[in-house]
């Protein structure tokens, strides 16, 4: 057992205690660069790692979560362990920063939630998650912003010239938006043929989204699909094919992810915000 005073136990995921799982975790290091291991109880196991108590106590953890660069390190470390275990076929990713006093507490948690975890594992076995994001193409919006286009407005006051240019841009943006909406609907149809489940995430906007996606236009759909693993490539190909020849639209397929978006007990469909 780990020394309570110096170490706590960071839990990454719940999975089945197989020899493959034991081998997989043996090759992994976690959020504190610690050796990851399995805590087992009967037919369930958790992938865990001992982390320094002074870095993962309440106050330290809170401070870490509130600071984006350190949050990023934590999030990528957590995700790295989950992603490495996903190929085992069935893994329930735990939410970031699930920390226990010791391994006995992890065992206790596994026993308490067994009736919940087993059916979830069953349902997700042999499935992967794909992310599909549909963007309006940024090119359509920015092309009209070239200063030469404003030449005709030279007789106008700066304010009016600005508004005129803005109006032109908006028209282009509306066309791109319509095209993207149509493409998103086509993709949803195609994807639905293969996927067994879908979860709509909130469209990504703002600096954080741009930091990852470079020349992104407006993100109008951000969906996650649960797909049988043996049809994963088929899914990706079909989604990309559905977007071919579409002007003003850009589609990003991410994954395969561990089934983060589906590792929840079935809940009522999240309502989408009306525009």
């Amino acid at each position, binding site marked *: 057992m780990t020394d309570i005073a110096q170490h706590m136990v960071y839990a990454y995921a719940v999975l089945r205690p197989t020899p493959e799982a034991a081998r997989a975790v043996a*090759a992994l290091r976690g959020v504190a*660069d610690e050796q990851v291991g399995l805590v087992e109880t009967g037919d369930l196991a958790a992938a865990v790692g001992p982390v320094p108590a002074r870095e993962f106590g309440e106050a330290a*953890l809170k401070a870490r979560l509130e600071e*984006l*660069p350190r949050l990023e390190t934590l999030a990528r470390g957590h995700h790295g362990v989950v992603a490495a275990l996903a190929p085992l076929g069935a893994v329930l990713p735990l939410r970031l920063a*699930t920390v226990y006093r010791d391994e006995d507490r992890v065992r206790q948690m596994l026993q308490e939630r067994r009736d919940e975890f087993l059916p979830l594992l069953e349902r997700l076995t042999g499935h992967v998650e794909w992310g599909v994001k549909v963007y309006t193409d940024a090119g359509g919006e920015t092309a009209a912003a070239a200063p030469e286009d404003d030449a005709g407005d030279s007789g106008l006051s700066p304010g009016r010239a600005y508004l005129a240019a803005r109006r032109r841009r908006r028209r282009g943006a509306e066309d791109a938006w319509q095209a993207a909406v149509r493409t998103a609907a086509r993709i949803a149809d195609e994807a639905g043929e293969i996927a067994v489940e879908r979860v709509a995430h909130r469209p990504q906007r703002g600096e954080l989204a741009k930091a990852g996606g470079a020349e992104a236009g407006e993100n109008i759909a951000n969906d996650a699909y649960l797909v049988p693993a043996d049809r994963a490539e088929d899914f990706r190909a079909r989604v990309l094919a559905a977007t071919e020849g579409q002007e003003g639209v850009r589609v990003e397929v991410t994954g395969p992810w561990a089934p983060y978006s589906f590792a*929840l007990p079935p809940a009522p469909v999240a309502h989408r915000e009306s525009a």
Partner: protein
Amino acid sequence: MTEPVAGRLGSPRLPASYEQRDAPSLADILERVLDKGVVIAGDIRINLLDIELLTIKLRLLVASVDKAKEMGIDWWEHDPSLSSRARPPAVESGGGDGAERSLSEENARLRAEIAALRAQTQNGSDRSDRSVDG
């Protein structure tokens, strides 16, 4: 400090079929590890309110920067890796494609000044007005 060795995708230990083509973006990872996945209570109780605040901040960040700013949330602006505004403001030499950007930057700056002035006035008249504190 801690190098997230396992976090680097494309590491040779991943079977090829599971390797992501590109390292996932921070936005994609955060929306999954913070918002999805199994929620179980750990022994370290991260104040739920705090977590929700964080999540709300991130959601706003991902949903609408303008809205976040209206609410006075701007912590990412001080991080150069996230925002060009965290760099020292460059003086626009006028015209060109910088015209609109300088307009919107000026707009943002004026809004910030108004907010600061407003806060000063309130602090002067009522010092108990500080809302967010641990």
